[in-house]
C-alpha cells in the first residue's frame, strides 16, 4: 500500500512510496480506462538539496526538454543542453521543486529480470536520493500569495506512461494549495496538453488568452532566447 505521510506545508520531508498496481489506484472511477503498467518503487523528494544540478542537466537531455520555450533544434531533433549555472539560479528561486528517484537497475533492465534471485542484496540497500537515479522532476514558481506557474515537468522516456508524471504534478499542486495558492497555471505545448488535461488542468475559467513576448527585430538591442531573437524595447517617453 502506498505510504502517505502527514499533510503539511511540509516541504522538508522526503517520502518513500511504493505505488500499488494501477487498477487498485483507479478502482473508484475509471477502471475502464487503459491500464498502465505499475510504477516501479520510487522515492519522491520535495527537498531542493536532493537535486544535483549536473544530474538534472542530464535528465533534461534524456527527455529532450529545453528551458527555452522556443529552443534551437539541431538537425537530429535534439535540443541544446541547458545551462547549468542558470539552472541553479532557477532552482533556487523556484517555490516548489519535486524530484523523483528510482533504483538504477529499474531504469536500465527489463521488467522480467528484476525479480531474479541474485540481486536480492541490491534490493536491500534503501532507496535514497543518493543511491537512486534521478528519473523525474517538476518545479513551480510562485509569488507565495496569489499565483503559481508550473514548469519543466519531465520523466525519463523509459519510465513514462506509468503514473510518475502525474504523481509529480499532484505533489506540486498539493504543496501549492497547502500554502493557499489556488491560481495555478502551466504552459504546455501540443504534446504535453493531453498529460495536463488528464491531471485536471483545463482552459482558463475566465477565458483569458495566453500570450508570449515574441517580437524580434533588427533593433540594436536584442536578446536571444533559444531560437527567438527578442527585441529589447528602447528607453523612451510615452
Amino acid at each position: 500500500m502506498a505510504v502517505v505521510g502527514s499533510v503539511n506545508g511540509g516541504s522538508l520531508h522526503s517520502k518513500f512510496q511504493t505505488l500499488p498496481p494501477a487498477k487498485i489506484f483507479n478502482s473508484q472511477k475509471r477502471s475502464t480506462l487503459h491500464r498502465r503498467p505499475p510504477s516501479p518503487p520510487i522515492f519522491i523528494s520535495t527537498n531542493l538539496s536532493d537535486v544535483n544540478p549536473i544530474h538534472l542537466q542530464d535528465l533534461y537531455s534524456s527527455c529532450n526538454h529545453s528551458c527555452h520555450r522556443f529552443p534551437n533544434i539541431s538537425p537530429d531533433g535534439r535540443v541544446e543542453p541547458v545551462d547549468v549555472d542558470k539552472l541553479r539560479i532557477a532552482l533556487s528561486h523556484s517555490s516548489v521543486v519535486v524530484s523523483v528517484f528510482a533504483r538504477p537497475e529499474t531504469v536500465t533492465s527489463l521488467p522480467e529480470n528484476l525479480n531474479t534471485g541474485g540481486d536480492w542484496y541490491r534490493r536491500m540497500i534503501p532507496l535514497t536520493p543518493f543511491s537512486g537515479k534521478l528519473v523525474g522532476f517538476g518545479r513551480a514558481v510562485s509569488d507565495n500569495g496569489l499565483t503559481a506557474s508550473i514548469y519543466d515537468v519531465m520523466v525519463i522516456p523509459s519510465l513514462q506512461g506509468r503514473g510518475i508524471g502525474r504523481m509529480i504534478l499532484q505533489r506540486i499542486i498539493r504543496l501549492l494549495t497547502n500554502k493557499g495558492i489556488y491560481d495555478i497555471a502551466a504552459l504546455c505545448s501540443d504534446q504535453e496538453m493531453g498529460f495536463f488535461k488528464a491531471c485536471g488542468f483545463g482552459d482558463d475559467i475566465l477565458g483569458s488568452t495566453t500570450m508570449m513576448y515574441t517580437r524580434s527585430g533588427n533593433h540594436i538591442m536584442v536578446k536571444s532566447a533559444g531560437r527567438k531573437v527578442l527585441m529589447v524595447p528602447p528607453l523612451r517617453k510615452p
Partner: protein
Amino acid sequence: MKTSTSSSLCAIIPVNCILNCSNQLAYPCSFSLKLSRGNRVLKVSQLKASFWESIRSGLIKNNSTQVIEPPSSTPQEDEEQEPLPEEFVLVEKTLPDGTIEQIIFSSGGDVDIYDLQSLCDKVGWPRRPLSKLAAALRNSYMVATLHSIKKSAAGEELDNEKKLIGMARATSDHAFNATIWDVLVDPSYQGQGLGKALIEKIIRALLQRDIGNITLFADSKVVEFYRNLGFEADPEGIKGMFWYPRF
C-alpha cells in the same frame, strides 16, 4: 509610514507568515541571497532548516550537490544597455491652473496595499485578501508602479497629492521564465501610453537579465493592446492551462 502599514499586516495574519518563513528557509530564495557570504559550512546550516539535514550534509564527502547558490559575480553591464534607474520622471505636464503634474515610474516595489486595493476597485477588479496581496507583492520579481505627484507652480510638492495610478508586476525564476500579472492603470489616466510604458520597462528589465520566456494571460478586451506591444497569442500552439480544483 508605508513600511509600518505592511508590517502591521504581517502581525494580523501570523499563520501565513510562518508558512512563508519556513519555506524561505528550506529553499534558498531571494531572502537568503542577501546574507553575507560566510564559509561554506556556515552557509549550508543557514540554508537548511532541519537538524537532520545538516547532519546528513556534513557526512557527504562529495559536496557537489550543495551548490545551490547564486553566482558570486554580478553580470557585467554592457555599455550599450544602460541599467534601468529605479525611479524617474516619465511624464511632466503643466495643468491649466499652473500646478505641475509629474508621473513617476518606480520599480522599487514600494506600494501601499490600501492604495492598490482602491485602484483595483476603480478599474473594477474583484477584491482579494490583503495579506495574500501583500505577500504576492513582496515575492514578485519586479513590481513597477506609476505615481502622480502634483507640485505647485513654484515647484514645491503639495501635500497628499502623490497617488498611485498604475501598477504591473512580474514573477520569475530569475533565469528562464517570467509571467506578468496584474497590470492596471487608473481609468482617468488611461489612453496616454502609460500602460505601454509600464510593460515595456518590465520587458526591458527582464531581457537585460536574459530572461527570455515572458508570458502573460490576457483578458479578451486587452489582447490587442498586448499584441501591439509584441506579444503573440498561443505562439506555435503553446497554451496556458489552469488547475481546476476537484472537490
